[in-house]
């Protein structure tokens, strides 16, 4: 088991390195190939040649791409200085970069916005897991009946609805027409858990509805497949109660693929729920990225993309390790 974990860990680190290399490469190579000056993207619409050259030098954009990448990785591990004598900017590890355009440290900004995204993602995850898996199981056990059809139609509608549409629609109904909920927003949990929950309930439900639909479909399909297995027939033939057959025998193997998908989805969301944050105007990581993109603030884009990739790789790793525990066969592969 230990060796398996180590192997997965190494694979994860390699993936992360490749992701950073590719992201880095693209953000520095694409402007080069298409003839836009990356220094210009950093400084904004400054026309002063001296200022641009200064920025280029300060950020090390005059160095070869590989060396720049080396500096970036070094910054992540031990921190780095954006050089040049008097206006030296120190960026402590883990240095994801520094936004010269808007004057902030990318890592610190991400750290302060992470709670928003995390609150959104974790709260929604709890709802969609209960709702989606529950609906999927009921649907599978009542296959072909009215309730199955209703759940599956709802689920198909759920996967076909864009989240910004359901978000706006539910906000305009529940907040502005019926006045049942306060307008969505984020306030820290430790300040007042009630306002925290009230402000997030609509984003949670909207986001959870989308995922619950996918999970209901997945759970139903897996459950039906499991129910046709021989060992389920054996369990029934042994005279076990239906509750035990479903709850113990069938559910366990149904949950395995769901664990995988859940880990990956949660990991992806922690890196920024871009659309949900934009619709509900929550200042999380996804919103940071969108803002950075609209102002061409390259270090922030790079930082958030890599941070998001980190969460996905971490989630992958956790899922792999969990899988090793649930299903010992994969350790040998």
């Amino acid at each position, binding site marked *: 088991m230990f060796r398996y974990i180590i192997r997965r860990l190494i694979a994860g680190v390699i993936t992360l390195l490749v992701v950073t290399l590719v992201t880095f490469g693209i953000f520095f190579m694409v402007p080069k190939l298409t003839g836009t000056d990356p220094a210009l993207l950093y400084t904004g619409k400054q026309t002063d040649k001296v200022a641009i050259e200064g920025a280029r030098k300060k950020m090390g954009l005059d160095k070869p791409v590989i060396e720049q990448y080396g500096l970036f990785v070094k910054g992540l591990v031990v921190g780095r200085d954006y050089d040049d004598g008097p206006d030296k900017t120190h960026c402590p590890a883990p240095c994801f970069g520094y936004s010269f355009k808007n004057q902030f440290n990318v890592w610190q900004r991400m750290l302060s916005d992470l709670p928003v995204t995390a609150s959104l993602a974790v709260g929604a995850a709890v709802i969609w897991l209960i709702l989606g898996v529950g609906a999927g199981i009921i649907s599978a056990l009542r296959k072909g009946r009215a309730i199955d059809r209703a759940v599956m139609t709802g689920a198909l509608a759920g996967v076909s609805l864009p989240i910004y549409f359901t978000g*706006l*629609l539910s906000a305009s109904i529940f907040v502005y027409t019926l006045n049942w909920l306060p307008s969505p927003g984020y306030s820290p949990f430790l300040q007042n858990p009630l306002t925290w929950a009230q402000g997030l309930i609509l984003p949670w439900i909207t986001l959870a509805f989308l995922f619950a639909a996918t999970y209901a479909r997945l759970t139903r399909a897996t459950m039906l497949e499991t129910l046709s297995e021989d060992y389920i027939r054996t369990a029934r033939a042994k005279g076990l109660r239906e509750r035990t057959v479903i709850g113990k025998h069938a559910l366990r193997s149904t949950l395995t693929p769901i664990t995988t998908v859940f880990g990956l989805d949660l990991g992806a969301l922690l890196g920024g729920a*871009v659309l949900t944050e*934009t619709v509900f105007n929550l200042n999380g990581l996804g919103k940071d990225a969108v803002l950075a993109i*609209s102002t*061409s603030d390259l270090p922030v884009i790079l930082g958030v*993309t890599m941070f998001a990739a980190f969460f996905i790789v971490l989630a992958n790793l956790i899922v792999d390790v969990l899988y090793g525990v649930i299903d010992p066969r994969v350790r040998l592969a």
Partner: protein
Amino acid sequence: MVMGPEPPAAAGSTLVADELPVESEVRAIEGRSLGRIAWNRLKRDRIAMAGGIIVIVLILVAIFAPVLVKLVAHPPNDFHDDLLDPNLGGLPKGRFGGISGSYLFGVQPVTGRDMFSQIVYGARVSLTVAFLAALVAVLIGSVLGVAAGYFGGWVDAAISRVMDLLLAFPQLLFAIALVSVLPQSLWGFGGTFLRMAVLVVVIGFFGWPYIGRIVRGQALSLREREFVEASRSLGARGGYILFRELLPNLVAPILVYTTLIIPTNILNEAALSFLGAGVKSPTPSWGRLMSDAVNYYQPDPTYMIVPGVAIFVTVMAFNLFGDGLRDALDPRAH
């Protein structure tokens, strides 16, 4: 004695003579009937057929957008100030976003553009990008997937790693970031064409691993089947086995996932446009209409509902048809 050898020979010859046409006939009937069985199953699936019909109607609407607009609406970029209420900051006059007999979907706030033509022209962008991106994803995905599954070894390892890596990318972020570093025009192409090409490449490129994984899995199991073994022992080479033996057996899953990746692409295109990485104004786009509608959804919810419903109906129709097609082609799956 004369009769002795004769009957076997005759029997033999009639057997051979009978067998050949019978065999080819059987094969022909079977080849047809497999497709026909699926078609019959699909025909009985009323929900899937409804989805399919809506899809066809939408495609026709997109193709004949200029004709349709000429018949029942107004050119997409004509401003209609007279339909707006200056006292309300340019919101449409009348209830429900200014819906009327000649403005079937109402008018856009501030500009007064006819929403019907916006939606109809928006369908062109949406469907074109979705279909082309699906084509890109299916081509890359099936070629690399079948290669990984069939050759195994380091080929499989390399392709599988690349697929894992692509799935580990924060795709939406990456896509909008990529669009944002691209210039306004490139290699002589500009504006709408360039943006659409970028959308196709980005969506297609991030979509292929989903198809690649499925095709790889199928190829992996097909490789061990007897007919491949037989073909190999008859001296067939890799390329022949890949394209003539494996690929025909993969057509059904590839077809199903193509129909199911199109709605995902439509949602992705709309999401990218919503975030400002889609085609630029004045080319109508559903996602951009949605992002504009965010500013007006309290006073004028119709403006948000119209493009939202357009996206929903389109995606739902493709999903219904795709689900039905999967059930028809592979009844064991459900």
